[in-house]
């Protein structure tokens, strides 16, 4: 006999985010360690307060390029030798910059951890930014920018940022820079950026995995003994919107079978006191598979393979955006549904059913998020970058569970702004422009022939 009755859950087992220790080394470096012994593996994540928002005007992309070139040559080894040495140890270094920080990361099996970390510390304490490698990586970035012209998803993201933020906002330009800014960057720019910003007082090293706190401390102390002291100035950030009203932009791609859609406005900074309410509100609106926007556009209408919304949480107010790709012919119809859903969640309280789905999911999925040393290190980096309290993960689930339907409604009213929505489409203007214009979502601009 088939079992027709849905089983009930058993008793939930308790879970705690891994214990970690947060301390300042004598050198001024902040060290965060989380011993995890599941497998013989560890992640070392170095984060430096030198994100793309610290790029000077006209030097957009310098943080990313400096991070990218960091391992391309040191006083002892050239870039090829460094790659070879790390990879012989079974690891390779990922380095880069996002809006809020520069990061350098390795994951390695335990018995290679010491050697790999020493090599890492020495290399990034003495980089030479060789001319040839700088020019090569600039060329690779320019190739990436060229690729974007035929890549509708990336192009839509980039155009959305450009049309959303004021031209003097760092957020209006790609974090890795534009072709103009990158072309103008020099080895000297990288060197200066490095000297100014890669300082002990701006550096946190996170070690998560199969190593004790004492061993980590000793390892990091030795590996980073030549790391420069001092701290960098923090830079102020302009993150205001480009226009105060709605507007619509079509980036023309003749014969595109789909329109890539981005609809949104300037969102909230990560440290906003209503973070949890807003997170839950967005989960109901477009954050989950079972959210209103996805069920509407995908499951009710079949317009798309998927639709979602999110707040891009940064130190400054990153974008709130609804993102989807729909068959060209239904572009206007899909936009109408997106605008309706944004209005609807602001006008009436969500049902208990919807609240509990989002709340239960965000609460109960918590342990599944921290299965890997890299995920644990990255969670600890979030604490550091956004200056969150030490018990942030200890109280996370409680904070999620405390959100009510009324709080979600208040968050929707306070943090969704229908009058400020910017609509950006990458698609076939000939097919979509007229029907989109009929929706009156703001002044319509068509870009490209």
């Amino acid at each position, binding site marked *: 006999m088939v079992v027709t009755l849905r089983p009930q859950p*058993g008793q*939930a087992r308790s879970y705690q985010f891994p214990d970690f220790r947060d301390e300042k080394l004598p050198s001024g470096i902040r060290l965060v360690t989380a011993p995890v012994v599941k497998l013989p593996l560890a992640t070392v994540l170095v984060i430096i307060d030198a994100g793309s928002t610290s790029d000077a005007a006209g030097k957009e992309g310098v943080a990313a390029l400096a991070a990218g070139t960091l391992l391309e040559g040191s006083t002892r080894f050239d870039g090829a030798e460094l790659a070879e040495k790390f990879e012989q140890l079974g690891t390779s270094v990922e380095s880069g910059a996002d809006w809020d920080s520069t990061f350098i990361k390795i*994951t390695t099996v335990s018995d290679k951890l010491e050697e790999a970390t020493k090599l890492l510390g020495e290399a990034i304490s003495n980089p030479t930014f060789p001319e040839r490698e700088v020019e090569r990586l600039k060329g690779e970035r320019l190739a990436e920018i*060229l690729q974007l012209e035929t890549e509708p998803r990336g192009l839509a993201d980039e155009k959305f940022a450009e049309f959303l933020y004021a031209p003097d906002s760092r957020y209006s330009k790609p974090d890795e820079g534009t072709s103009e800014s990158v072309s103008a960057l020099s080895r000297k720019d990288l060197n200066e950026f490095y000297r100014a910003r890669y300082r002990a007082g701006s550096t946190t090293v996170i070690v998560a995995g199969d190593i004790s706190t004492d061993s980590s401390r000793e390892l990091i102390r030795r590996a980073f003994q030549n790391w420069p002291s001092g701290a960098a100035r923090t830079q102020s950030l302009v993150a205001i919107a480009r226009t105060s009203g709605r507007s619509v932009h079509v980036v023309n791609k003749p014969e595109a079978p789909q329109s890539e859609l981005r609809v949104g406005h300037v969102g909230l900074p990560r440290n906003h006191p209503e973070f949890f309410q807003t997170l839950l509100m967005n989960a109901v609106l477009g954050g989950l598979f079972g959210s209103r926007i996805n*069920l509407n556009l995908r499951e009710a209408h079949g317009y798309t393979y998927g639709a979602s919304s999110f707040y891009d949480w940064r130190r400054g107010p990153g974008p709130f955006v609804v993102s989807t790709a729909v068959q060209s012919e239904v572009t206007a119809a899909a936009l109408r549904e997106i605008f309706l859903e944004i209005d609807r969640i602001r006008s009436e309280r969500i049902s208990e059913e919807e609240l509990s789905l989002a709340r239960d999911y965000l609460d109960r999925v918590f342990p599944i998020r921290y299965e890997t040393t890299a995920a644990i290190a990255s969670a600890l980096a979030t604490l550091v970058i956004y200056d969150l309290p030490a018990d942030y993960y200890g109280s996370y689930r409680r904070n999620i569970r405390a959100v009510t339907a009324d709080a979600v409604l208040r968050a929707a009213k306070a943090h969704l702004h229908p009058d400020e929505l910017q609509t950006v489409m990458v698609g076939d203007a000939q097919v979509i422009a007229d029907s989109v214009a009929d929706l009156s979502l703001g002044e319509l601009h068509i870009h490209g022939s």
Partner: protein
Amino acid sequence: MALHGGQFTRMRIPVETFHLDNGLFVTLSEDHIAPIVAVNLWYHVGSANEKTGRTGFAHLFEHMLFQGSAHVGVNEHFELIQRAGGTLNGSTWLERTNYFETVPSNELALALWLEADRMGELLPAMTQEKLDNQRDVVKNERRWAVDNQPYGTMLEKMQELVFPPSHPFQHSLIGSMEDLSAASLDDIGQFLTTYYTPDNAVLSIAGDFDSDEARKLVTEYFGPIPKGKGKPPLPPMNLPPVFGRSLREVVYDNVSLPRLFMAFRSPIFGSDEYYAASVASAVLGTRKGSRLHRSLVRERQIAADAGAFTFDLAKMTDLLVADVTARPEISVAQLEDEVDREIELVYREGVAESEVKRAIALIETDLVVSLQSAGERADRLSMFATYFNRPELINEQADRYRSVTAGRVNDFISERLGEDNRASLLYVPKEGVETESVLAAAAGTG
């Protein structure tokens, strides 16, 4: 208990197996590291099993499995798992389809019950309306991932180029718009009774559970599902070890940069020779220290990016593919010449011991990294059980790789990287290209 102090002993993943009377193969890997458990089902059916005129059906069918079953409403599978705090999805490949969820360990019964309900009683929930809706969703998936994405047609163009007509791996996995339109509810019924049967599936459970309790639940939920009547055999799939000549196809597409995918017929996944091929692939194209990256990206600055990978096909033949994207100032002909030169160099001179050691070290770390996740452990158990009836192979991978020597890699190279076994799939930007130089290159090597 298989574990002590929340740690895998000597990196060995515990493995237990049993069969139900209806043929369901079950693998269990119990640990108590975190209160989570992964449930993973592999059905031994993929696009290779599709009949003529129904390309894309295996994948469309995968979508239908999320549309409810006798005791589960439309989209309720997703909702129940997410409400429980779980993550879930499914995927379709040439020779298998998998469904998986990771849930808090107190929700194991729910995950198993949902999988059993859709294995045993999907049909009562199938309607024309749901099929029409998911057909639209899948067509939009095709537009998104294939048609409106640079190089998005790579997989189907490659299959067409390297497999002979009517070979089960030759046709498109996502399917043609026309065939998707033709799929009917009758097809759903037939496919279900033929392939979605317990004797054509492997169920794996990994993570925090009690083995006896899991056996009881699996038997209770999956036991009543009747055994299948057997599936039709795939047409003969054996192919010679090499193509026999150079193959080449040029695709003029909406891309910014020329990109060359060069494929080599290579030894079947899981064979001794496969491990040598897999190491060769890493020597060629894994990370910055690899041959292609070092030479074409770093030293000669021909390429913006370079890599290599294997398809990991477990039926008769596999493919190794080198993947190189040109820099903007490099012509199509130059790209092809340089990649040819690099492959020819490897073919003539072989690779060095140190390159093999580098590759194996990277592969070993990746293996350990992947075993951290319960979902990955369960998926690999299902894979080894489906293809080889031996889930315990999960614990032999590191040794298989460690035993690969430079000599074996070079044997593989001299057998498989010659001119008689190269298939070039070349993407050329549609606009702003001097068509004549491309045609000249075609005449030169075709």
